[in-house]
């Protein structure tokens, strides 16, 4: 078993006791809730006559169903309006802080936690959303949970979990031109498999990780779940601390930063920490990665041939055959030149300010290809405002992109933003599952935000390195 890792240390600090079934009971430092997975939990609480134990450690937002075009209340979609109203009532009754759209702080739950400074190193964080792993970028232990577990956390501010193994993924070398954090994580999932992380937490380390900004680290931790790992984290360092110091929480609480920093340093993995597994990856070998199939593990370099199912491991062949039929691709082809109908720049993986800036450098002065629907959905209202202030909105709109309000949008298609029929979508999101973006015949190709921008301009999956970047003002 691992020893001396951040995971071990934070786990031990939060362990309340070992339950009779052998699971550990862990204290939860921050519980994030949203409208899709919490209403049933509040219902269960009510049935049992229980109250929310720690509303002060619970924070709500609305992201999955929120319309990104017209947000006037009541929402045009009755079901969405009902979910929003239910959330409003629940948080009001319990006294939970709510970043609703009128506050200017609303956004995707995994974007707003970090930007408000409530996501911090050495915290345990849970949310009824699998991409809660995102918060691991700060050195938090962050897990996606189901609704019955949300009930547990609301009632007790604790969760029952089994300790997992720790796999260190060392990403060494320097990233090449046009290659980003997203490509690193797509490569990790491709190599280790979509189920390779089951039973593990991933610790991302190595110079390529250390050189990433916080947003890049979030993109990587975000997709830990797509590799089967329930959580992933990066040890907090100066990059983390600098980022945190600027957030609301620490700006509004002078002295807290200095007070907490020793704790954050104390939970870093020891130099001689023991791991259950270590994997090394050379970042300098990577090209931009795109998916050719219907799981995030089916990725390849932009110029690499799509594999023949029979060349894959036995247990991957059937999935690959079905995926290639669905995507209408053939072994031996590359994805370069695959025609797209939609370009979606958004989601908790890649809708932060640096993502939009990088994409804007590709888009500036160019035009979206004919017949391509392209749109940008910022990860939060703050990202949206910042992007508008620095002129990114104008760049995108001038090129023919639709500029929207913050939310999960077409990542999973729970609002009006959905693929239609068999449309193909270049997407900066995290899942290319069949039906994921709202149409069961829709085809999703995952890629980094600059690659989405390039696809929008050319109308096909393209190597962004072939398009010259334009400096932003």
């Amino acid at each position, binding site marked *: 078993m691992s020893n001396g890792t951040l995971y071990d240390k934070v786990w031990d600090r939060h362990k309340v006791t070992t339950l009779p079934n052998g699971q550990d009971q862990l204290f939860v430092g921050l519980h994030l809730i949203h409208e899709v997975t919490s*209403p049933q939990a509040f219902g269960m609480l009510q049935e049992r*006559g229980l109250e929310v134990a720690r509303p002060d450690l619970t924070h709500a937002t609305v992201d999955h169903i929120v319309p990104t075009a017209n947000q006037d209340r009541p929402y045009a979609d009755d079901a969405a309006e009902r979910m929003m109203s239910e959330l409003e009532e629940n948080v009001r009754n319990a006294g939970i802080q709510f970043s609703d759209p009128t506050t200017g702080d609303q956004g995707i739950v995994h974007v707003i936690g970090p930007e408000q400074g409530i996501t911090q190193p050495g915290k345990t964080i849970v949310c009824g959303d699998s991409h809660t792993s995102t918060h691991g970028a700060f050195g938090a232990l962050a897990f996606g949970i*189901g609704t019955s*577990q949300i009930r547990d956390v609301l009632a007790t501010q604790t969760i029952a979990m089994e300790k997992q193994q720790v796999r260190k993924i060392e990403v060494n070398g320097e990233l090449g031109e046009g290659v980003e954090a997203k490509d690193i994580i797509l490569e990790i999932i491709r190599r280790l498999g979509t189920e390779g992380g089951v039973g593990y937490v991933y610790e991302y380390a190595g110079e390529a990780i250390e050189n990433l900004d916080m947003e890049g680290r979030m993109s990587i931790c975000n997709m830990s779940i797509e590799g089967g790992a329930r959580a992933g984290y990066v040890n907090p360092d100066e990059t983390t601390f600098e980022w945190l110091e600027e957030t609301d929480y620490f700006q509004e609480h002078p002295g807290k930063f200095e007070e907490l920093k020793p704790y954050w340093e104390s939970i870093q993995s020891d130099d001689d920490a023991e791991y259950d597994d270590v994997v090394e990856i050379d970042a300098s070998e990577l090209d931009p990665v795109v998916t050719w199939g219907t799981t995030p593990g089916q990725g390849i370099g932009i110029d690499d041939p799509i594999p023949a199912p029979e060349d894959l491991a036995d247990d991957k062949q059937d999935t690959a055959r079905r995926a290639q039929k669905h995507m209408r691709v053939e072994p031996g082809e590359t994805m370069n030149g695959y025609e797209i109908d939609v370009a979606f720049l958004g989601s908790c993986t890649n809708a932060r300010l640096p993502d939009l800036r990088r994409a804007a450098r590709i888009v500036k002065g160019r035009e979206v290809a004919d017949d391509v629907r392209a749109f940008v959905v910022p990860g939060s209202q703050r990202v949206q405002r910042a992007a508008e202030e620095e002129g990114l909105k104008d760049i995108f709109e001038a090129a023919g992109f639709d500029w929207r309000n913050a939310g999960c949008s077409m990542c999973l298609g729970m609002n009006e933003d959905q693929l239609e029929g068999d449309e193909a979508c270049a997407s900066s999101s995290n899942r290319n599952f069949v039906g994921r973006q709202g149409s069961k015949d829709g085809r999703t190709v995952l890629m980094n935000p600059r690659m989405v921008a390039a696809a929008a301009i050319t109308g096909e999956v393209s190597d962004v390195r072939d398009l010259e970047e334009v400096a932003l003002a």
Partner: protein
Amino acid sequence: MTDATEEIPEVDYVEGTGIPIRGNDIDTDQIIPARFMKVVTFDGLGEFAFFDLRFDDEDTQKEHPMNEERFGDANVMVVNNNFGCGSSREHAPQALMRWGIDAIIGEGFAEIFAGNCLALGIPTVTADHETINALQQWVDDNPDGEIEVDVAAETVRYGGNEASVSVDDAQRQALVEGIWDTTALMKANRNAIEETAGQLPYLDQRRSDLEADD
């Protein structure tokens, strides 16, 4: 507050007939498409389980085991590897449970999915590829054949065969002893929770903030 240990049934054994759902990496978006999650209760999700694989655009049935009359009463699902990957939505096991599933036997399960099943008292037991293949074939040939999932003994019996399967230790104990609903169990540790919280450097901060704000 009711005493959980009195209220929660022990799940040491599930018997019934099977239904094979073949394929690796079946994600929760397939088990319950996102559009059916625009609800504030889990009631009625059963009919939408695997909806897009079961029905076409005109709501006409497609070929799928869950549409076959012979599997209509099945309560034991037999699946392949990495079942339930993707989104953490508890709506997925809720939909399967409400369709009629009481236990799932498979090559492997995604972690959150297995945890969500446990919270509903649904065992997720695992076996190797050959065992699962043989069982899926047998279920196909014997839709009325009885399957016995012995959670405590970690065996599955069917048609005169007995296969050894694995049940995660904590899951087995929780199911067998009827302690899989953890709310009351954990709430009972109030003092220990307070004590742990009291030693977290970041928490004192937020508590005192609140008091200051008051």
